[in-house]
């Protein structure tokens, strides 16, 4: 106990005495650790932003997409009830129909086409749906006597004279019996020059336009580790229930780009760390030569060769550990102050916590490079004869 504490105290004391020299060598190590930790964290955030953007388009990780293979005689409502039953049996908490509908809205110029979707309330959760204005559907909306719509800006411009969704404008959907529908929310545009887009609750669509809706697509949000299993089980169960669906298999490596980037950055960081370590080794060697007499004096105090070895090694390790801590702290400070809104266009919904594994990797690299840089001077220090050292 006293041996270890003594060696650490001794190492710290040496660093204190030679702080200017050591500090210069450690700047490189601290910078490298900052680079490794900070950029790993930044890449994690970048990956999260990409993933969220991707999930807005095609559902959360992991969302299984299912398409009807056709051929069944059942009505969309019957298909939906069967799919609901299969999802419930497999305890899939979030799933949603993605039904297409062929509906016309009164007042449209000739040739104007509205992209209709009939969905369930869960669709917003699965696709991280954000609202530009107003709100998303609720379960209570299914019981309303008139349909409610969530639309995009192009729809409002074309059919509601650009009235904001917050004023709840109404539009008339043509059919055998025209129906007045109320707009309750506006979704953000997905791309430039997007045409009119409208979403309706599937249950309401079935009530008002049963013949114009096709329950031809579904989304199931399942745990990533069970995705492959579900991708096999679901089509089998759905087919057995009489509703043949093709279920897309999950991709093994959904975000390859950010991983490549991460490895690239880690490589650069590792190289920087190596350079920092070489600088430290250089300083440590010079310092040990300069301190030969002192090492001899310490041997006269009863320092064993093991203790001298450990002490010199510890100087390097303690120094790089401190540099590592500084590097991680700087990385945290930088990452916490990145203007995410400005870089990614919108704030992250699920801001990833600071990647502790990256911090641990950074610290481990710092300690490792300290041990390597300390090894050669430590061997040198032990090999010096005590008498020669004292007379040095």
């Amino acid at each position, binding site marked *: 106990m*006293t*041996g270890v504490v*003594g060696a650490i105290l001794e190492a710290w004391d040496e660093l204190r005495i030679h702080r200017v020299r050591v500090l210069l060598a450690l700047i490189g190590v601290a910078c490298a650790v900052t680079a490794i930790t900070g950029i790993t964290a930044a890449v994690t955030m970048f990956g999260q932003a990409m993933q969220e953007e991707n999930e807005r388009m095609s559902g959360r990780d992991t969302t299984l997409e299912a398409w009807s293979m056709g051929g069944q005689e059942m009505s969309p409502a019957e298909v939906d009830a069967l799919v609901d039953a299969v999802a419930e049996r497999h305890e899939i908490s979030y799933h949603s129909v993605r039904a297409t509908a062929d509906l016309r809205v009164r007042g449209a110029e000739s040739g104007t086409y509205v992209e209709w979707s009939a969905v369930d309330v869960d669709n917003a959760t699965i696709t991280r749906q954000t609202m530009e204005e107003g709100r998303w559907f609720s379960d209570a909306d299914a019981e309303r006597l008139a349909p409610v719509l969530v639309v995009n800006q192009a729809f409002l411009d074309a059919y509601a004279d650009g009235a904001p969704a917050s004023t709840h404008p109404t539009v008339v959907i043509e059919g055998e019996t025209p129906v007045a529908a109320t707009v309750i929310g506006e979704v953000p545009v997905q791309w430039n020059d997007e045409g009119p887009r409208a979403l309706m609750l599937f249950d309401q669509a079935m009530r008002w336009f049963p013949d114009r809706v096709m329950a031809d697509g579904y989304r199931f949000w399942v745990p990533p580790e069970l995705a492959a299993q579900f991708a096999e089980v679901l089509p089998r169960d759905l087919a057995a229930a009489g509703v043949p669906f093709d279920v897309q298999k999950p991709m093994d490596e959904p975000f390859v780009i950010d991983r490549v980037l991460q490895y690239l950055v880690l490589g650069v960081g590792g190289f920087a760390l190596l350079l920092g370590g070489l600088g430290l080794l250089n300083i440590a060697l010079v310092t040990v030569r300069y301190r030969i007499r002192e090492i001899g004096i310490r041997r006269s105090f*009863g*320092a*064993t060769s093991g203790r001298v070895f450990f002490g010199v090694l510890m100087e390097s390790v303690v120094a790089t550990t401190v540099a590592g801590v500084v590097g991680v702290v700087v990385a945290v400070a930088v990452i916490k102050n990145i203007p995410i809104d400005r870089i990614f266009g919108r704030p992250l919904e699920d801001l990833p916590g600071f990647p502790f594994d990256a911090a641990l990797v950074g610290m481990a690299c710092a300690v490792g490079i300290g041990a390597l840089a300390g090894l050669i001077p430590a061997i040198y220090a032990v090999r010096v004869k005590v008498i020669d050292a004292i007379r040095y």
Partner: protein
Amino acid sequence: MTGTPLVDLQGVTRHVELPNGSTLEILRGVDLTVGRGEHVAIVGRSGTGKSTLLNILGLLDSPTSGEYLLEGEPVGRLRSRALARRRGDDFGFVFQQFNLLQGRTALENVAAPLLYARGKQFWSRTKLATRSLERVGLGDRLDTRPEKLSGGEQQRVAIARALVRGPRVILADEPTGALDVETGQAIMTLLDDAASETGSALVTITHDLAIAARADRQFRLADGVLVRIHLDAPAAVAESAAEAGAPPAAVSAAETAGFPA
């Protein structure tokens, strides 16, 4: 001297191989015993092997042949780790050039050996170091660095450092060699008193006959052979003065000690 001596050298030799293949005999069959609390002085010219003998005594070097018994235990059988531990536990060193650790305060210098101690000594090192510095009269210079201290003060710090672990033997290699006569006498008085107070044996290597004369027993090392000599203090002081240029008044004493008159 009764019972087992603290230090017992029996027929110790030390040879070194020279680059030209010849062998240099530094020590030839040295016999020396030192009892607990005893003060022993070894005199001799430069290059006669005094420091080698001291290094062997302090477990910093090993004899080529012969036996070294420390409290009856042959140190030749000890492994390097045990040797280092005994060196730290049993010996305190005072060097001619003080050998203080640069950049550290007097207190840190004196506390340094306690970093290699165990138990209470380790955890109470600041208190013990402060007490040791107070004993040598430097209680008011705890935070002063060696470069700000005079030669005498630096040697006092070195003495405080040698005493701090309560060694059984203090080995002083020319402790007054870098000091003027007056300061050297004061330092030796301090060293003698401190060794007597703590019950430590004191082995002093010196050129100065007056310093050697303070010891209980004196030896002369010449051509690798250790011979017992007898110095009485006044004669030795006169001889020292003669060496410094005064008329020879104690030639016999000087000749006995093996120094040129």
